[in-house]
């Protein structure tokens, strides 16, 4: 590009940004209105300073139909973290086995993992629920997270990353005396750290946004995630307090944004950069 501003592109870009940001800003600004005002159908683009107290109230006090938001945010955060970390640990190990070792039925194992791509939680939700129920872990944190952890996508992604690692690196480490786990820890993980970070961001957001499974498996209000909480706040018999709903929605947006911003550099690097 010659350094001249391409106005057409710029305008399209601005429209795109506005299309994404304006609704969120509208929700944020309107959350500071009083419940009655929102009920009358008023919305605003200008936040009222006097109305910011709603965030404090939402965080600390129970709303109609749910507990305080800090609790739900904690549940969501723990669930998203557990899913992201659990998925990464499991898929790194399985991808490592598939990519670097030769054992009987290696390809079979790979294809079985691959096929589960076609069976996301939504498809196998009834049998999964039955298994969880027979194991007696309905309404527990374990029941909430474990079925979401086993992941074919992450395994595939790591397999590709690991296949791009030159065999000589593995062999050099072998001659240096590093065993398989040592190689994984000392060399393979640091070398693929950018990919791991990128995947962490994606998986964290994935876990954070889970709705169907938590709805089904966790009926105990103590295990309400923030996504479930918002729905419960809307569907109470009493009057929906829309300013509270909007404030909770804004709060629910914050953690994924923080994670994305914090890992942005790694994220882009992991997605765009191959080996080297």
């Amino acid at each position, binding site marked *: 590009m010659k350094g001249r501003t391409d106005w057409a592109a710029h305008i399209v870009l601005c429209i795109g940004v506005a299309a994404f940001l304006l609704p969120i800003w509208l929700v944020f600004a309107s959350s500071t209105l009083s419940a009655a005002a929102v009920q009358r159908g008023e919305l605003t683009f200008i936040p009222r300073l006097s109305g910011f107290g709603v965030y404090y109230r939402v965080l600390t006090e129970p709303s109609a139909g749910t507990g305080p938001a800090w609790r739900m945010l904690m549940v969501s955060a723990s669930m998203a973290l557990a899913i992201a970390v659990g998925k990464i640990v499991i898929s790194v190990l399985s991808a490592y086995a598939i990519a670097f070792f030769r054992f009987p039925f290696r390809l079979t194992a790979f294809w079985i993992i691959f096929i589960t791509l076609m069976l996301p939680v939504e498809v196998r939700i009834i049998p999964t629920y039955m298994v969880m129920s027979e194991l007696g872990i309905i309404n527990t944190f374990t029941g909430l997270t474990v079925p979401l952890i086993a992941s074919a996508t992450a395994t595939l992604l790591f397999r590709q990353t690991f296949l791009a690692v*030159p065999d*000589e*690196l593995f*062999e*050099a*480490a*072998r*001659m*240096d*005396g*590093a065993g398989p786990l*040592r190689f994984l820890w*000392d*060399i393979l993980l*640091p*070398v693929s*750290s950018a990919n791991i970070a990128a995947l962490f961001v994606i998986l964290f957001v994935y876990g954070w946004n889970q709705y169907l499974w938590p709805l089904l498996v966790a009926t105990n209000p103590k295990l309400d995630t923030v996504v479930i909480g918002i729905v419960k706040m809307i569907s109470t018999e009493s009057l929906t307090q829309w300013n509270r709903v909007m404030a909770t929605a804004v709060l629910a947006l914050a953690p994924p944004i923080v994670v994305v911003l914090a890992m942005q550099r790694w994220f882009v690097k992991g997605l765009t950069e191959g080996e*080297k």
Partner: protein
Amino acid sequence: MASLVLEDLRKSFGPVAVLHGIDLCLASGEMLVIVGASGCGKSTLLRLVAGLEVPTAGRILLDGRDLAPLDPAARDIAMVFQNYALYPHMSVFDNMAYGLRIRGMPKPEIRARVGEAAAMLGLAELLSRKPRQLSGGQRQRVAMGRAIVRQPKLFLFDEPLSNLDAKLRVQMRAEIKRLQRRMGVTSLYVTHDQVEAMTLGDRLLVLHEGKPVQLATPMEVFERPADTYVGGFIGAPAMNFLPATLLAGGGAVRLAWGEVLPFADGARAGAEGRKLSIGIRPEHVAVVAAGTALQIDLIEPLGSETVVIGRLPDGELLSVKIAGPAPAGEQMHLHLAPEHLHVFDAGSGLRLDPAT
């Protein structure tokens, strides 16, 4: 004393046999270069010794100990890889120290060994750099350093110079030779580059399609190639081969266009009319005022020398290396000196020495 001994070493990948029985015996401190075209099994041979592949049959002994039950790390062998295989996230120091750390060596000793190797290789200033901040030649040195600090019984080099540019390659070649001499460590060096093979090796092993063709000193391989493959592989430009038939008595041959060449070193066995292949190196063809005519086809000036490729009276191509600039005209006259002829059997390609 023999340091490394290979006994009838064989390797097959499934039904494909890659190495057909290698027997080898390296003296302590010797540098043996394994040379051959791509796919001749030379890298496989190295990997068998390293323990990265398991041989199909045969034994490998290092200082009298059978290596078969030992892990690569336990074999006391260090290897320099073609693409260096440096750990990209570790500093130069950590790259060299990694193997020693795993072996549980005390820290001061690690520091001493790495420091010594770094000084030897001129890496002392670069110890805190990452591999990506190094030039190709420096990476190459780090890979060498990683092998040196281990102080192994045996060095393996797997085409270590093939990723460097031509000038650096010459420089590193000399450096490797100097280092190997100085440390006196027995070494196996694999390359497809015949100049590297000639300059580095105490002895050469020429491999062709998984079979050892010749094992000798570089000069002997050059002067008395065991067959047409070795003759054509070692030396640049490649040796010329001319079809010929043996004359009665075995003391001379007749070339395709009728010219008769006597043997300078004695008669060859065989009946009259035996098909032979006469090898002569381009630099051994003399240009004379009157002799065999060569129709000039192509001239490749190399500066101090010139390679002329032309057609003989029977239409065969022949290359000639002459000192100085190219000759004028479309024709030149040659003399094929009998003392520089190599005689091979046309069928088997094997060298034919005078019957004694």
